[in-house]
């Protein structure tokens, strides 16, 4: 039983030790090929290290004197560590940022705006999916350089669908088609313990954020000040999942807790799986991978998916800001992003550089993800303090999905408490 209370000071010490060695260098002077500096680059995904090292090598061809050190911290500790570093003004020079955390850092003046890079023409925001530029802008100033993106689509298992006598999904499918198909699978293959669909219902990205959008509802008002959970269309988007669980098309929340949704799908125990671009490598490596493929999400009032992506940001307190920004700009460029895709690290945010991503797994129809991003992707809902209300979602929504309370009832309470949290921002 390790004491959590002792970990915080340790993290602080670790943070001090890690950053105390960055050398002081000429900061705001114009960067030349002869410039020397040492900058740190904090990331959380070990799988992407080789591709990023290749990017650093490419960057060093232009700026051989700038040393970039990768500072890898696992996801579970990444944000805790970053916060400790921010409190001590020792943030890494360049680091990965995600949507839910972005406004928190931007609003607290921790991030360096990209205004000068855009004004100098080093970066053209038009090269990136609009929604991603918006996601990383705060008060109309862009801070984050989109690195990659993910959208959500409908994964399915051909073999199970054939056995249950259900057709392959395509982009004409409505919620009704999907519901009938999922129910048919559950009914016909009940003796094998196979269900229609499994999806992660903690956090909305894989499931209910998409259906809320498809029903015409919203999680957060456009100005980010009001909860959308009291909108009847939003409630319809939540009801979709409660119904799937109630009629046995999906395992119960308890079953999904004991055995996570991705394990159901990779063990051929469900026919459908709502998930995003990030599942490609896992599903390509699954033992049943040749049975799997991907299709657009079903539609209700309209077609929709949430889009999210990681961005590279520069610390406002970096002592090597010029070098850090040059690296940030390089990482956003076509050369760096194409390399990322070729090395299978991520689906790049630079429009048109994703061919290598499409080719990475031949038996998956990955174009679906790109088409969704181009045609009907909506931003992942974030506000200044996203964590304050996403915790409330995770606390209340299970009561709706499990059928313990009516969806209207839960959504109503959620809207009230979320508005209280938003008012505190």
């Amino acid at each position, binding site marked *: 039983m390790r004491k*959590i209370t002792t970990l915080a000071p340790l993290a602080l010490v670790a943070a001090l030790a890690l950053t105390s060695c960055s050398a002081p260098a000429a900061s705001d002077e114009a960067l030349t090929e002869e410039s020397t500096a040492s900058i740190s680059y904090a990331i959380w995904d070990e799988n992407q290290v080789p591709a990023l090292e290749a990017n650093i090598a490419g960057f060093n061809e232009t700026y051989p004197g700038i040393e970039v050190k990768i500072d890898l911290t696992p996801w579970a500790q990444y944000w805790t560590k970053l916060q400790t570093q921010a409190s001590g003004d020792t943030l890494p020079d360049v680091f990965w940022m995600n949507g839910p955390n972005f406004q*928190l850092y931007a609003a607290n003046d921790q991030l360096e705006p990209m205004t000068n890079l855009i004004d100098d023409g080093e970066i053209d925001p038009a090269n990136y999916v609009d929604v991603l530029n918006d996601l990383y802008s705060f008060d109309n100033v862009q801070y984050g350089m989109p690195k990659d993106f993910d959208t959500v689509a409908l994964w399915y298992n051909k073999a199970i669908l054939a056995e249950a006598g259900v057709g392959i999904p395509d982009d004409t499918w409505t919620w009704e088609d999907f519901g009938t198909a999922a129910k048919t699978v559950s009914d016909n293959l009940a003796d094998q313990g196979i269900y229609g669909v499994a999806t992660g219902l903690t956090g909305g990205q894989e499931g209910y954020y998409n259906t809320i959008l498809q029903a015409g509802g919203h999680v957060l008002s456009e100005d980010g000040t009001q909860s959308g959970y009291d909108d009847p269309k939003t409630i319809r988007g939540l009801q979709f999942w409660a119904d799937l669980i109630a009629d046995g098309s999906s395992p119960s929340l308890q079953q*999904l807790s004991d055995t996570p949704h991705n394990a159901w799908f990779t063990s051929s125990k469900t026919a459908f799986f709502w998930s995003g671009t990030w599942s490609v490598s896992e599903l390509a490596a699954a033992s049943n991978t040749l049975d799997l493929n991907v299709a657009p999400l079903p539609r209700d009032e309209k077609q929709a998916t949430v889009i999210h992506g990681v961005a590279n940001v520069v610390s406002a307190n970096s002592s090597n800001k010029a070098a850090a920004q040059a690296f940030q700009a390089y990482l956003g460029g076509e050369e760096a992003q194409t390399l990322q895709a070729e090395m299978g690290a991520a689906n790049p945010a630079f429009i048109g550089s994703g061919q290598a991503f499409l080719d990475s797994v031949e038996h998956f129809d990955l174009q679906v993800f790109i088409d969704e991003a181009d045609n009907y992707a909506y931003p992942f809902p974030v506000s200044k303090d996203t964590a304050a209300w996403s915790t409330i979602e995770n606390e209340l929504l299970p009561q709706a999905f499990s059928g313990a309370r009516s969806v209207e009832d839960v959504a109503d309470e959620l809207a009230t408490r979320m508005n209280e949290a938003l008012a505190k921002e």
Partner: protein
Amino acid sequence: MTLRIGNTVGESRAPADLPVRPTAPKPKPKPKPQGFDGYWPWLFVLPTLLGVLGFYIWPIIQTGYLSFTETGPFGGEEFIGLDNYQTMLSDENVGQALINTLVYTAIVLAGIPIALLMANLVNQPGLRFASFYRVLFFMPYIAMPTAVALVWRMIYNGDFGILNWILSLVGIDGPYWTSTPGFAIVSVGIVGMWASLGFGIIILGAALKNISPDYYEAAQLDGATKWKQFTAITVPLVTPSLFFVTIISVINGFQLFDLLYAIMGQYNPALVQSQSLVYIFYNQAFIQNDKGYAAAIGMLILVVIGIVTFFQFRMQKKWVNYV
């Protein structure tokens, strides 16, 4: 001390316990100031002292201060008096977490009598493979809590777990152990108890070894049964160790976090009803970024553990025998 078995008591005392009685008066060379050994003992304790001050005492003081402030994720605290404590009193999650923590601690404490019985069995004279058993029982205690948790997650799995499979053989339809409110904290408690048995067995085993065999021989001559020997000799003589194990178990119980975090997982619909105090502290401090409120919960944990430990020390006079 109610135990009196002949005059063996005096002989069986460890020499260290005996007051030093010099046989002959030694010549005193020089009168020294009483209780003063110069400054340099301080030099020897300084490294530890600095560590304790820097990493325990100072953070506690700071946490105490933060608990009266509203502190955002990047510092910048604002003094708000007792607001955090008021919020805490009206926060039903904190009350539920306190109950859960008490339930967990009670289950872990229930493991101590089991540990004593097992330590007694392992210490039976002439038992073969005794040290093998000791290693075996101690293993869960040194294993990583997360690794332990992952194995138990599989055992507890409602659909595919071995526990429900065994229950199904005798016709019982087992529940979803870790995701049903009520069952969940008890399931975690059972793992906590199982994992800490080894600690109790080692400490109590060492205490058992220090009991002179003379007692048992004398008791046997008087015709005492094995059970009578256990309750009248073994138990009273290991009470100091029992006290120690109880104190440590209670403190560990109140700090329940990693086992709960790892066994329940993040997709658990019963999580809200099954949180522990430290879990709420973690959630407020690092997920919700409300460090001031988290500090107040931290102070609550400190005070609760302090009070419980204080009363345990007061109560020990009633049941702990120091020979």
